[in-house]
């Protein structure tokens, strides 16, 4: 059986304009995107619209995707790295309805990938667009709650507060205790929140051949990392940035290089680790890789029937 996320192009719902938003609004968003690309990492305020999906559930990413999508695009939507999580399903259904574009679960086939909390494991290529859903676009927000203040801090490139915060972690815990939404410097100018992706994904952002667009609907901000832009994770000489690694490998495909989800199997603490990126995992298994638990046909992974 093919996954339900694989669909051909169909006719969109005529009740709404293509991609739901009216053309004027899409133009306004595209202007904001262009500005964001011209000033990498800078949060551009935009006239975010009220979408038929709730704030905090991807409305920023949805508006960005709606502004850049065309009838020939192939869309992939992931949440936590997986195509079959409920909100990813819901967003994909929304675009299928209002654009009729073809959708896919395969990273390599997609022209646009909308994501929440992950960057796909396999590198995207030139011409592909990665759209991030962003809840809190302001990297300094946890330190300074006031927008009027944080805008000034960015204007003066005054990021000492963030360094102090990271240093305090080292003083208290002996290491930087930020594991996701780990702050990055973009193009050596703007401090940027990579959205709550795990710091594991940060190295994928720098000098990437693909375009990265970030949409925050509730906060009405868009920012961007154009292709081949430097993205550096903040660190100290004696405490260099590092990413998570696991003692385990993926139970299904045996991958030792991917971000692993921990799945609790029973109430006695039995656990297994599997790739969070379902497409990556399936690709590897199709190529013959087998993890410690992946051999048995009857235990086929979620989303696929044997």
């Amino acid at each position: 059986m093919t996954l339900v996320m694989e669909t051909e192009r169909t006719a969109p719902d005529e009740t709404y304009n293509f991609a739901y938003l009216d053309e004027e609004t899409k133009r306004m968003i595209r202007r904001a995107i262009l500005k964001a690309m011209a000033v990498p990492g800078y949060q551009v305020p935009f006239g975010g619209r009220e979408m038929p999906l709730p704030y905090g559930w991807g409305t920023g990413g949805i508006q960005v995707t709606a502004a850049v999508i065309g009838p020939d695009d192939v869309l992939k939507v992931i949440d936590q790295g997986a195509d079959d999580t409920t909100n990813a399903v819901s967003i994909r259904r929304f675009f299928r309805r209002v654009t009729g574009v073809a959708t896919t679960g395969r990273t390599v086939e997609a022209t646009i990938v909308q994501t929440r909390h992950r960057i796909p494991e396999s590198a995207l290529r030139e011409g592909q667009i990665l759209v991030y859903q962003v809840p809190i676009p302001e990297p300094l927000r946890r330190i300074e709650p006031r927008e009027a203040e944080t805008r000034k801090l960015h204007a003066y490139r005054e990021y000492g507060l963030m360094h102090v915060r990271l240093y305090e972690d080292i003083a208290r815990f002996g290491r930087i205790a930020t594991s996701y939404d780990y702050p990055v410097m973009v193009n050596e100018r703007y401090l940027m929140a990579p959205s709550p992706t795990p710091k594991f994904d940060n190295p994928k952002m720098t000098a990437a051949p693909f375009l990265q667009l970030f949409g925050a609907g509730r906060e009405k901000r868009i920012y961007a990392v154009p292709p081949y832009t430097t993205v550096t994770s903040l660190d100290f000489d004696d405490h260099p940035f590092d990413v998570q690694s696991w003692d385990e490998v993926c139970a299904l495909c045996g991958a030792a290089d991917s971000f692993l989800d921990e799945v609790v199997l029973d109430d006695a603490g039995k656990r297994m680790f599997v790739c969070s990126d379902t497409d990556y995992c399936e690709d590897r298994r199709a190529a013959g890789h087998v993890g410690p638990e992946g051999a048995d046909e009857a235990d086929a992974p979620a989303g696929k029937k044997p």
Partner: protein
Amino acid sequence: MYVAVKGGEQAIENSHRLIAAERRGDPAVPELDVRQIREQMRHAVARVMAEGSLYDPDLAALAIKQAQGDLVEAIFLVRAYRTTLRRFAVSRPIDSARMAIGRRISATFKDLPGGQVLGGTYDYTHRLLDHELAGDGAGEAVAAEAAAPLDPEMPRVSDILDAQGLLEAEMPDDESDPVADLTRDPLRLPGRRDQRLQNLARADEGFLLALGYSTQRGYGRTHPFAGEIRQGTVAVEIEAPELGFAIDIGDIEVTECELVNQFKGSTEQPPQFTRGYGLAFGRAERKAMAMALVDRSLRAAELGEETGHPAQDEEFVLSHSDNVEASGFVQHLKLPHYIDFQSELHLVRRLRADFDARRTGTDREAAE
């Protein structure tokens, strides 16, 4: 062995069918008609219109039906719909002095030109459940007719005080200056009063009520008097450029509240009364009054008063007043966060390992 923890298309489909059946309830009970909601749940309709920023009682009633009476959900439905509507004109400011009055009261003067008009209100009902309404036996309700029509001259209390210079003057904005519109532009901070009033008019009633209440309990006192509360219908006019004059496109029902607040004056300004303003669609006195309290409270900095309380903090109030935003973001915690949680789990395990290693080291030192 690997349980399918992730939901799918089918689960969502089934969930939609289930919620539709739950909405309908017992099929033996007649289905609610949208017109019944519009006519008999007017306060709910008013709230959905006000916070949904769309004056359309039929659509508001439909949203209430669809949302099973969850008003914040109904407001969300109306907001998502209104964003698809084309904007064909910007109306002239409504003139509440020319309102067809349904109710008009002032707490500052015993009598005043136009008189006090109590109108329909629950204010002086005793809140006793009316069991007659429970059955079909409720008789027809017939309103008493007034002996004489209302005075056509119904000047606003603020205009009366204004004429004596006791109330701060309210200067109209330059008409060529476009009015802020939060449905088109992001919130600006610090912002002007037009943006603030729009934000408050769309704000969650409960949030405003609590904030307004906090000012009365001492968290930024504003010494308010209900100068006037009026409710009724006003004409909406637009100016068609090709005509060169304004045309009336319909009436809307609104509730307006003008608070008069004590102000001791400053080095530049003599002691006088200041204003707080509230306006909401339909019958919404609680909302309009709470809004007026918060509007005045947010003027503390501008008037050189002491600040620091929540209701005086523009960024705090305006950033958190919208219930569609708040409801979405609070409830997004339902979405899977296993990646972030896994990252934190990973971190906590490492920190605990560090902690244990340090403690073992300390124990060894102590033993030596």
